[in-house]
């Protein structure tokens, strides 16, 4: 059989959910068989993804690759069409990687293992689906599909306020996704042809006003997911209540869906509107960075602290998207992958620490470093990664966004100056909250109260293994970013070119610029 023709994407997307359907029939007494089964499925799927990537993916190609399209409902012209390009490939691999590790991280889960692993596998499929589908309706369907497992995982296995958190999560995201549906339908019906195919939608020419409405609708939907302040308040609650594996998925992958969709739809399909609204995106990004960093600093709850740090890091994605430079865009994608890895590792470690201390309140911890030197070491390493230490992926991503935005010719000098200074203040704030956190958990004289109450054992090999797995790519991409950037470079290059061409044409036509009243905005690209 020709490996290049094998339907890799369809198989890998559907394998976890199919395997999950078999879970009720597996004989199992104590949940051990189930978890090994789930882990094996996850691993096989990840390996298949890697093989598929090696066999079918061309690093030089900028367009859609490994595409498959089957008619699903002929009458509706609904097609199962999947494919990957540079934007989705890294995230697809990330999904396989993090989801598999999240299943391994679920070892301590003993409550209702069948349902738990069923949902984990269902989520695996849903997440992959979001990144590979090339049909708007299918995308919407996948987007919704992945909500249900998250909702259930939150509301059954979460902390004390789990129902509140889960409800908030579903209301927010579902409310947001209504905007996707409306915008998708509007775009599909616009013009002479009715199509849901993403490629065809991107090729359509929409008038600017129409684009702006669509853009805002998408921005709200994806802004909830990313999240963009002030649409973020579901996140600290959801993250604060979730168990460690769910946490890893939320931070590692779910947030990236927002960034991915912004790139694919807002930037890719509505370039002119992006040209108009991008300055706002930069401002929101800066607000994200600083506001969330400050909130994180004041937080006394460990999970919420890290949750806010995620929000802060996502600000860089928005600025990268709005930089109109190849480097900035590249940095945004890198930041998504990088934060996926770093966020997952930090949340996993928070879970591991909680398993021992049984408290998330920082003032009740302290001085546990002596008893748990390995967790201490891993926590320190991952915090360093999160505060963008050179040699780790976070640094490269933030640096690319910084340089990309600073050298962007789309904004005026003053605007860039103020924004870059504010972004750089984030660089000071990040170590403040992360190092304070480390100090409050691990440093200081031994905590006698905690020692008497809890058994503080050090990390077990499984935990060390999970962190080691996450650190390999974090450090690998940090030392040699080309490992990752080459996967998507061709795509982002083409996307930037397309974007610049459209925005330039827009400026030449002298069309309206609704944001022109903002004194600092100057999305004026020089010609030539």
């Amino acid at each position: 059989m020709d490996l290049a023709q094998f339907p890799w994407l369809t198989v890998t997307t559907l394998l976890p959910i199919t395997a999950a359907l078999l879970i009720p029939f597996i004989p199992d007494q104590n949940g051990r068989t189930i978890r090994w089964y789930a882990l094996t499925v996850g691993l096989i799927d990840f390996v298949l993804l890697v093989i598929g990537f090696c066999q079918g993916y061309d690093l030089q190609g900028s367009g859609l690759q490994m595409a498959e399209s089957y008619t699903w409902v002929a009458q509706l012209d609904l097609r199962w069409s999947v494919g990957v390009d540079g934007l989705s490939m890294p995230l697809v691999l990330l999904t396989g990687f993090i989801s598999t590790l999240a299943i391994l991280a679920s070892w301590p889960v003993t409550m209702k293992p069948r349902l738990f692993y069923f949902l984990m596998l269902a989520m695996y499929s849903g997440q992959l689906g979001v990144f590979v589908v090339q049909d708007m309706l299918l995308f919407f369907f996948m987007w919704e599909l992945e909500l249900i497992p998250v909702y259930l995982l939150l509301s059954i296995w979460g902390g004390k306020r789990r129902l509140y958190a889960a409800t908030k999560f579903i209301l927010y995201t579902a409310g947001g996704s209504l905007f996707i549906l409306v915008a998708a339908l509007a775009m599909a019906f616009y013009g002479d042809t009715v199509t849901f195919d993403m490629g065809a939608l991107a090729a359509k020419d929409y008038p600017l006003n129409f684009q702006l409405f669509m853009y805002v609708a998408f921005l709200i939907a994806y802004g909830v997911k990313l999240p963009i302040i002030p649409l973020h308040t579901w996140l600290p609650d959801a993250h604060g209540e979730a168990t460690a594996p769910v946490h890893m998925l939320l931070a590692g992958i779910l947030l990236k869906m927002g960034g991915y969709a912004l790139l694919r739809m807002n930037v890719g399909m509505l370039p002119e509107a992006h040209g108009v609204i991008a300055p706002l995106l930069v401002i929101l990004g800066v607000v994200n960075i600083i506001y969330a960093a400050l909130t994180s600093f004041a937080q006394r709850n460990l999970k919420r602290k890290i949750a806010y740090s995620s929000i802060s890091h996502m600000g860089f994605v928005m600025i990268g998207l709005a930089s109109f430079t190849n480097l900035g865009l590249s940095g945004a994608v890198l930041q998504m992958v990088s934060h996926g890895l770093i966020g997952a590792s930090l949340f996993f470690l928070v879970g591991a620490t909680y398993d021992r201390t049984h408290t998330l309140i920082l003032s009740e911890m302290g001085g546990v470093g002596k008893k748990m030197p390995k967790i201490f070491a891993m926590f320190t390493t991952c915090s360093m990664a999160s505060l963008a230490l050179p040699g780790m992926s976070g640094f490269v991503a933030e640096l690319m966004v910084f340089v990309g935005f600073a050298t962007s010719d789309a904004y005026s000098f003053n605007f860039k100056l103020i924004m870059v200074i504010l972004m750089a203040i984030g660089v000071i704030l990040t170590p403040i909250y992360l190092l304070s956190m480390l100090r409050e958990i691990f440093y200081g004289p031994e905590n006698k109260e905690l020692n008497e109450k809890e058994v503080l054992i050090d990390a077990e090999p499984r935990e060390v293994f999970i962190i080691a797995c996450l650190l390999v790519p974090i450090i690998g991409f940090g030392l040699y970013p080309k490992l990752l950037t080459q996967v998507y470079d061709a795509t982002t290059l083409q996307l930037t070119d397309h974007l610049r061409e459209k925005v330039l044409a827009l400026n030449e036509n002298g069309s309206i610029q609704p944001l022109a009243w903002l004194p600092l905005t100057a999305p004026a690209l020089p010609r030539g």
Partner: protein
Amino acid sequence: MESIEAIYEYAWLVPVLPLVGAAIVGTGLVSYSQTTSTLRRPAAVFIVSLTGAAMVLSFLLFFSQFQGQEAYTRTIDWASAGDFHLTMGYTIDHLASLMLVIVTTVAFLVMVYTDGYMAHDPGYVRFYAYLSLFSSSMLGLVISPNLLQVYVFWELVGMCSYLLIGFWYERKGAADACQKAFVTNRVGDFGLLLGMLAIFWATGSFEFDVMGDRLTELVTTGSLNAGLVSIFAILVFLGPMAKSAQFPLHVWLPDAMEGPTPISALIHAATMVAAGVFLVARMFPVFEELETVMTVVAWTGAFTAFMGASIAITQNDIKKGLAYSTMSQLGYMVMAMGVGAYGAGLFHLMTHAYFKAMLFLGSGSVIHGMEGVVGHDPVLAQDMRLMGGLRKHMPITAITFLIGTLAICGIPPFAGFWSKDEILGSTFAVSPVLWGIGWLTAGITAFYMFRMYFSTFEGEFRGTDKTIQMQLKREQLMAMGASLGPGAMNPQELTLEESTHGDGHDDHHHSETPHESPFAMTFPLMALAVPSMLIGLVGTPFANYFEAFIHPPGEELSGLAESAEAFDWNEFLIMGGSSVGIGLIGITLAVMMYRTRVIDPAAIATRIKPFYQLSKNKWYIDDIYEVVFVQGSRKLAKQVLEIDVRIVDGIVNLAGFVTLVTGEGLKYLETGRAQFYALIVFGAVLGLVLLSGVT
């Protein structure tokens, strides 16, 4: 010829060798902590020999450069996006090869010393891993070919410093100090990053000479305002300000002494803190064209030199005293850079690296000896009021410490004289006022260093004096109470201190008198004494081999003969004589106050109380920062959180509540049935699709 090329091709091994050591031992510590921790000696030998190999390679490179080999640069494409490329690699030129030699020799000797100093510490192996990691980052920094790579390693050495200051993480002081060091350095890096980005925006390059050339061109053609360029350069200078502990970002360095003494010698005296000076040297092509920037640099250095010295006078903790002295000496180097004395600044960097490393290691030896008497309590073991008369018990430490003291005081022919004199000479030519500050500081330096020497090594041994011990403990408790504030005082901590204090009395009473340290510790002291005495001779004004080798990039090589010709005996005698003179005055004062005790220091302190308090309280800068920045940022963060919880989230919850009360959503929310919701959405989609199919 081929072998020489080969050296350069493998020059990347210099930083990589220690990195390999750190990586292997570090991995071992995390994966097999029990086994690795017991393999103390093998791990140490492994890491020390890798550093030794790096040292040999550095010497080979240095000699090759000294013989006139061309500078060698190799880069690889590191990150790229489209036609945009960032490169990384290494450069071996005169400056880099010199720095390699300084860093590897000090690192090697400090590692040997560590074996003795940390012999009884449970974290022995971990300490070696950190030391090795630091050496690697520092070596990577000095061979960086561009500003971006400097920034990368700049942050890495900062992280190593963080890890090493916080090495004894159970100590509250260490925990606070390491965070303070990292955050203060990040403030500097904030400027460095901004400056770097701005210069890149203007010139499109991170290469030092290209940046300098293009900026000059842009300014002369008028396409860029010179004031703006100066702001960029000053932003870059914020980085060195933090790393080299220059006012106002110096606050972290004295606190960093909470770390073990070997790292105080290696990182916080000889190498990392000098990185700031090194960066200014690398940025010289950019800085030298901008007069404002040079003035700012020079004045920052001069002010820091004076301030550090003025604080060092009243310190009783031997390491804190040396820390302020380091800050002051770094001020000299920065001032030298600011007045354009490129060679002199780097010359002082080199001499200072050796004699200050020796002084710190000497202080470590003293502390090691004191711990045998007063127990493992930094409050007691490091306070000079408990020392005295140690020369009889620790002769090698005393002699080497005296050599270091003479070197830093600028007494010929010791190393410090030549470099400091050259700085003062060059400064006088530019600004007599700056020279005056430097000259005065030299006197204060001589005074406080001899105060330190006499209180430690001469007179009667006071280590067993219970009343002084009690007084010190009381002072510490009061200081802790004050720093925490009455409300925030943690009673557990205070009682804990009391109990260890009790232990110190009963259990750790090893002996009545301190002992000389083991050979592993005295050997590095003796080895460092040699350059502290002699290395100044390579840079005498009548035969300045140093300046012939190290000169600003772009400047024509002024030969040895030329510098000898330009040499003027008269000028040398006046300049050298005046700086030796004020040094001797300082020493005489110290002799009268702390040796022969003709003058009572306490009486003077009460007479000039405001000045004494200013010095003793470190110019109140820590207190000001505490109120303005630390508490300020906490308050701001709290307020933002309040807004987030009450307003942003409040609106959401209110909206939820309203729908809850009014709508049919009630049923759905109560049962929380997601499936029901999914069904609705799916139905809606299907309906819309059908609808679209019909029309």
